[in-house]
């Protein structure tokens, strides 16, 4: 069936009617937020203790930004590119186990790219492909789920990154796509034991990178989280409202993105904040997670990215400056749509196409048949979906 456009049309009309009023409300909220930013900018001590207070008493899992040393409205430009350096990115993709397919298997594909600018040579590519079949498809807690697979993939990305970085020409700057922490919670169909195992491994990798003093970061292209706004909300709440902190969102609708776009000129970064959240709690000391916003766009088309860094990078001014400069350079390389070139390429290298997926399946099936083993069938559902794809050879 299809959409009932009649119903939709009515609802859209309502949206339209409410929109202008809502807009005005939002404008007022933004004014408020800017004002707060301005007022509280330097009152970092008070803000930090406020957050601690809430975490200790009312919401230990609250997610917000914690200022470190720089004022809230801090903005900073640098173009401190080292004369020689290596930038490395890694990305991964997977073939999830598909019970509709002929063969039951899954695959993790991780790709990395190393680039040294100023040299007349192409970047080096690396790929690592790992197939999981039969017993590999089970962990101690049962069959691999999509979430598990994603975790494993992320972990492998970082491992590849560490491996490449350890042999690269220093100084080395690395990024991965998305936030630094491993994504996943126990409740996401992920057994706690599995998650813990992966987390431990991740922490080990990060420590290794820390030892090597390599700049590690996560690049978030269109940041949606509003950690700084939450911080401002906390500053706004009265003493009496604090206990109900989990339910009160006075600045709801205001977004970090918009806030900082007005603040940061192209190439400028915001203050470095520390991430306050439950999951961030796993990363401690020199691995503690921080972030800053960076305007990677142009005068006529600004664009905000969030860059997450561990503590050893956040604490080192040189690291930060280099990271900022390299990121800006990488984003400019691509042209009108700012995004780090190496991240895009890493993604390309890691990507598994549909054809490749089908090729792998055929290869497995062929091998099984060669040993005179039976191969499963497509599910009826899948077979029906595929009917329309058949084409006869014509020129």
């Amino acid at each position, binding site marked *: 069936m299809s959409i009932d456009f009649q119903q939709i049309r009515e609802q859209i009309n309502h949206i339209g009617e409410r929109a202008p009023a809502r807009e005005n409300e939002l404008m007022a909220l933004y004014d408020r937020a800017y004002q707060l930013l301005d007022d509280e900018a330097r009152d970092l001590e008070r803000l930090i203790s406020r957050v601690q207070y809430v975490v200790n008493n009312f919401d230990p899992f609250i997610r917000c930004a914690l200022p470190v040393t720089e004022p809230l409205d801090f903005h900073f430009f640098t173009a401190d590119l080292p004369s020689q350096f290596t930038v490395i990115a890694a990305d991964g993709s997977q073939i999830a186990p598909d019970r509709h397919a002929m063969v039951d298997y899954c695959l993790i594909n991780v790709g990395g790219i190393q680039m040294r600018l100023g040299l*007349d040579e*192409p970047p080096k590519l690396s790929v690592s492909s790992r197939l999981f079949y039969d017993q590999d498809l089970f962990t101690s807690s049962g069959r691999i789920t999509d979430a598990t697979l994603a975790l494993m993939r992320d972990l492998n990305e970082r491992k590849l990154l560490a491996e490449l970085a350890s042999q690269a020409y220093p100084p080395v700057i690395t990024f991965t796509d998305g936030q630094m922490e491993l994504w996943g919670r126990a409740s996401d169909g992920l057994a706690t034991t599995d998650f813990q195992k992966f987390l431990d491994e991740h922490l080990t990798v990060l420590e290794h990178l820390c030892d090597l003093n390599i700049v590690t970061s996560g690049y978030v292209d269109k940041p949606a989280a509003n950690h700084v706004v939450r911080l401002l909300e906390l500053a706004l709440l009265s003493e009496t409202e604090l206990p109900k902190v989990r339910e009160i969102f006075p600045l709801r609708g205001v977004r970090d993105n918009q806030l900082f776009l007005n603040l940061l000129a192209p190439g400028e970064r915001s203050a470095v904040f520390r991430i306050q959240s439950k999951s961030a709690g796993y990363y401690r000391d020199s691995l503690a997670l921080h972030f800053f916003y960076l305007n990677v766009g142009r005068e006529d088309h600004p664009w905000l990215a969030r860059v997450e860094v561990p503590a050893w990078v956040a604490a080192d001014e040189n690291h930060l400056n280099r990271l900022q400069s390299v990121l800006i350079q990488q984003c400019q*390389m*691509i042209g*009108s749509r700012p995004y780090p070139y190496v991240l895009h*390429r890493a993604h390309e290298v890691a990507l598994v196409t549909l054809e490749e997926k089908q090729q792998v399946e055929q290869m497995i099936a062929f091998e099984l048949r060669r040993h005179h083993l039976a191969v499963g069938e497509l599910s009826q559902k899948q077979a029906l979906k595929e009917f329309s794809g058949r*084409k006869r*050879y014509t020129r």
Partner: protein
Amino acid sequence: MTAIEIGRLLRAGTTGFVVGCRIDQFSLPSFGDLVRVPLDRDYQIYGLIYDMHVDDDGLVRQLVTSEVIEETIIQDNRVNRNVPIEISVLSVGYEQDKRTYHLLPPRPPLSLDVIFSCNPDELCAFSKAGRFGYFRHILRARDLPVGELLAAHLQKAQRAHVQIGNPMWVNDAIQELITLLRDDYAVLMSLLSTVGDAFNE
């Protein structure tokens, strides 16, 4: 010989087939190349490449919008990034038990791993077996750029034949074409002027 690794066989029939593969620019075959496809120990199909489709590359289109392109990025694109292409091949003959035939192959390919670009010796051997019977297949395919395809093929074949000491081959080939097309003025003249351009070095 140059081996072109194939990603997959997309479509195949008695008169030809289409393959998709990723290939770097140094190994790209060219339009009009003769390729051979071994399917069995003693059976292989010969075909002419009549179309190559390079899929749209979003990244390259994006890169050209930047003001300056770093050398390493250029190199990256030239060397590292595989070009996904579709190669369309017209069947023109086959070899069975070491004998070459200019007829349509009895069995089309069902699955492929590799096809080979023919070297000059193989090109000579195929093109001089018989009396240009394989021209029929090309001329029959009126929806292809027949003139261009024949011109490209003749050019390459002539080079190979000159090397083995048979410079009159192209004359014989053109004679045969004239005989086949003597009643079709439009196609013959268009074909001859295209071939004439090709040899007008």
